[in-house]
C-alpha cells in the first residue's frame, strides 16, 4: 500500500521562502560577521604579502595574477592554503545548528505544520548556506582581484580569469561538502554543541591528521614504502587513494592544477626517459587543466550530494515531537 502512495503537491513548495529567510538570517547574524572578518583579514593579508613578494622578486611571469593566490611568504601561508583551512570552518558555522536549532527552539513543528514538505526545509537550509558562502567568497574574490589590479598595475589575462573563476567554483564546491556534513550532524545530534564538535573533529582530522594517518594505513594495506628494488609502487597507489578520500586533498589538487598551469599531473607520474624527453615543457592550456581536475571537482560535488542525501533520509525518518 505504501509503495503505491504518491504524495500530492510539489516538494519544492515554500523552498524560496525558506531560502530567503535563512539567507537573511545568515547575512545578519553576528556569527557570520565574525567569520567573514576573520576570513577577509587573513586572506587579504596573505594576498597583500604575496603582492609585495611578487613586486620585489619576479619581473615577468606569464601568470602573475595566479601567483597572487598561490605564493606564500613567511609567516603567512598562501591565499589558497588559507582558504582551504578556513572555508570548512565557515561552512560548519553556517550549518551545525540548522535542524537541531529548530528542534530546540521548538519552531520545527510550527514550520512543518505549514503546507510544505520537509524536503523544502532541508534543501532550503542547505541552499541558503551555500548562497551565503558564495556571497562571501565572491566578494573576497573580487576584492583580491581589485587589490591585484591596484598594486600590480596590470589586468589579469583572460586565461587567468578563467582559471580564477574555476578556482572560485571549486572553492564553493569544497565549502558545499562541509556545509552538507555540518547539516548532517545537525540532523544527527540533538545538541548543537555536539554537532559542532563532531563537525570540527572531522575537519581537524582531515586538515591536520590525515597526512599522519594516511602512511600508517597505507603500510598496513600495501606493506613498507621502500621495497627491495626501490620505492614500492603499490604503496604509492594505495596512499594516493586514501589521501584522496579527504575533501581537503581533492581541493588542494584542484587549486594546484588550476592556479599553477605548469602542473601536468596529479600524483605519481611513471614515464620512460624517452617519453619524458618528448614532453613539451610548457604550461598546460586551460582546457587541459580542467580535464586534469575534472575527477576531483566531480568528487567534491558527488560527496556533497551523498552527504546531503544521507542527511535527507535521516531527517525524513525523524519524529517531529521532541
Amino acid at each position: 500500500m505504501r509503495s503505491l502512495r504518491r504524495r500530492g503537491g510539489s516538494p519544492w513548495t515554500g523552498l524560496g521562502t525558506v531560502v530567503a529567510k535563512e539567507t537573511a538570517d545568515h547575512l545578519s547574524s553576528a556569527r557570520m560577521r565574525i567569520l567573514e572578518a576573520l576570513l577577509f583579514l587573513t586572506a587579504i593579508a596573505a594576498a597583500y604579502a604575496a603582492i609585495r613578494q611578487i613586486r620585489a622578486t619576479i619581473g615577468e611571469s606569464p601568470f602573475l595574477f595566479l601567483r597572487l593566490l598561490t605564493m606564500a611568504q613567511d609567516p603567512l601561508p598562501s591565499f589558497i592554503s588559507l582558504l582551504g583551512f578556513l572555508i570548512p570552518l565557515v561552512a560548519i558555522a553556517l550549518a551545525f545548528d540548522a535542524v537541531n536549532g529548530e528542534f530546540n527552539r521548538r519552531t520545527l513543528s510550527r514550520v512543518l505544520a505549514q503546507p510544505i514538505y520537509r524536503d523544502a526545509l532541508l534543501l532550503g537550509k542547505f541552499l541558503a548556506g551555500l548562497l551565503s558562502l558564495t556571497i562571501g567568497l565572491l566578494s573576497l574574490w573580487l576584492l583580491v582581484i581589485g587589490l591585484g589590479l591596484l598594486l600590480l598595475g596590470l589586468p589579469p589575462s583572460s586565461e587567468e580569469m578563467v582559471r580564477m573563476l574555476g578556482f572560485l567554483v571549486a572553492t564553493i564546491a569544497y565549502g558545499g561538502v562541509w556545509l552538507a556534513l555540518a547539516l548532517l550532524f545537525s540532523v544527527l545530534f540533538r545538541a548543537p554543541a555536539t554537532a559542532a564538535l563532531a563537525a570540527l573533529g572531522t575537519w581537524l582530522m582531515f586538515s591536520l591528521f590525515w597526512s599522519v594517518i594516511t602512511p600508517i594505513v597505507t603500510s598496513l594495506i600495501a606493506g613498507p614504502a621502500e621495497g627491495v628494488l626501490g620505492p614500492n609502487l603499490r604503496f604509492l597507489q594505495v596512499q594516493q587513494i586514501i589521501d584522496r578520500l579527504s575533501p581537503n586533498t581533492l581541493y588542494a589538487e584542484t587549486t594546484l592544477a588550476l592556479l599553477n598551469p605548469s602542473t601536468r599531473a596529479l600524483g605519481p607520474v611513471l614515464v620512460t626517459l624517452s617519453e619524458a624527453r618528448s614532453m613539451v615543457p610548457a604550461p598546460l592550456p586551460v582546457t587541459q587543466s580542467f580535464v586534469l581536475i575534472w575527477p576531483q571537482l566531480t568528487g567534491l560535488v558527488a560527496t556533497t550530494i551523498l552527504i546531503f542525501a544521507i542527511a535527507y533520509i535521516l531527517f525524513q525518518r525523524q519524529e517531529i515531537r521532541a
Partner: protein
Amino acid sequence: MPGDTVIRAEALTKRYGSKLAVDHVDLEVAAGEIVGILGPNGSGKTTTILMLLGLTEPTSGRAMVAGFDPLRDPLEVKRRVGYLPDQIGFYENMSARDNLAYTARLAGLTRREIDERFTAALDRVGLSEVGDSRVTTYSQGMRQRLGLAEVLMKRPSVAVLDEPTTALDPHSTAEFLDMIRGLKAEGTAVLLSSHHLDQVQSVCDRVALFHNGRLALSGTVTELAAEVLGGGHVIDVEAHGGDLPKLLAAIPGVVRVQALGGDRYRVDCQSDLRGDIARRLAPKVDLVGIYFAAPSLNEVYARYFAEARDAVA
C-alpha cells in the same frame, strides 16, 4: 451548529517498535464543534494529532481531514488546518510580525493578506501593542497568544490546539477559552487537548478520553458520566446523626455513596432521587440540605482511571 464532518479517523494506529502508541482510534468531528481530547501523558493524544496533521505517518488506518487524506495530500490538509503545538517556540531574534509573516508565506498567503490578517489576528489575541517587538521580550502567555494568532491568520477549517492554556494565568485562560469559542462561532472545528478538565468541560461539546493509546470513551460529559459513574445524576446530601451511608445505599436507584468529609455525602443515582432521599431520611436524621451536583468531568476522569487501575491490579 455542527455541520459536515471535517475530521474522520478510522482505526488509526501508530506503532513505535513493539509499543502501540495509538491503537485503532476512531474519531469524528463536525464543523463548528469543539472536541476535547483528554488522557494522561503518553496516552497517544499528541501522536493522534500529529497523524491527523500528516506530520507522522500512521502504521495503519485511515484519516480524512478537511476533505483530504493527510497521508496522500499532506499539503492540502496543512493548508486548511491551524496547529498550535504544546510546546510552542518562535525565532527569538525576530519580531512577532516577522515570525508570523514567515509561516504565513510558507502557507502561501500574499503580502497584502499577511498584513491585513496579522493586524486583525493580533487584535483578537490582544497583542497589537507589541506586534513589532522581538519575541525574546514575550512572556510564555504572550507566546501562546501569538501561537493562536498564527492559527487565526490561516483562517483554518480545523484548529488543533495542543494544551494551549498550560502556561496561562486564570484571567488569560478565560480570555483564551473565549477566543476558542470565537473559532467555533466561525464554523471552525476545534480539537482541544488539555489536562485542565474544568476548562474542557466549559468549552467543549464533546470529549474523547484516551487511555493507553485507545479511545476509551467519547461523548458529551453527561454521557460519559452516565457510563462511568453509573448514573447521570449526582446528589450531595448533608445531614447529622444516623448511619447516613447505610441509609442512602438502601434507597433503590442509588449506585454509589461517597463521603465528602464532615456530614456531607455524595450520591450517584440513576435518576433524580432528591425527593426519595428527603422522604426516607427526614424521619431518621437531622437533614441539613440536599443539593443537585452536575456531573463534573474531573470526577468522571478520576473515577475512570481509578477503575482502570483496579482492573489492572
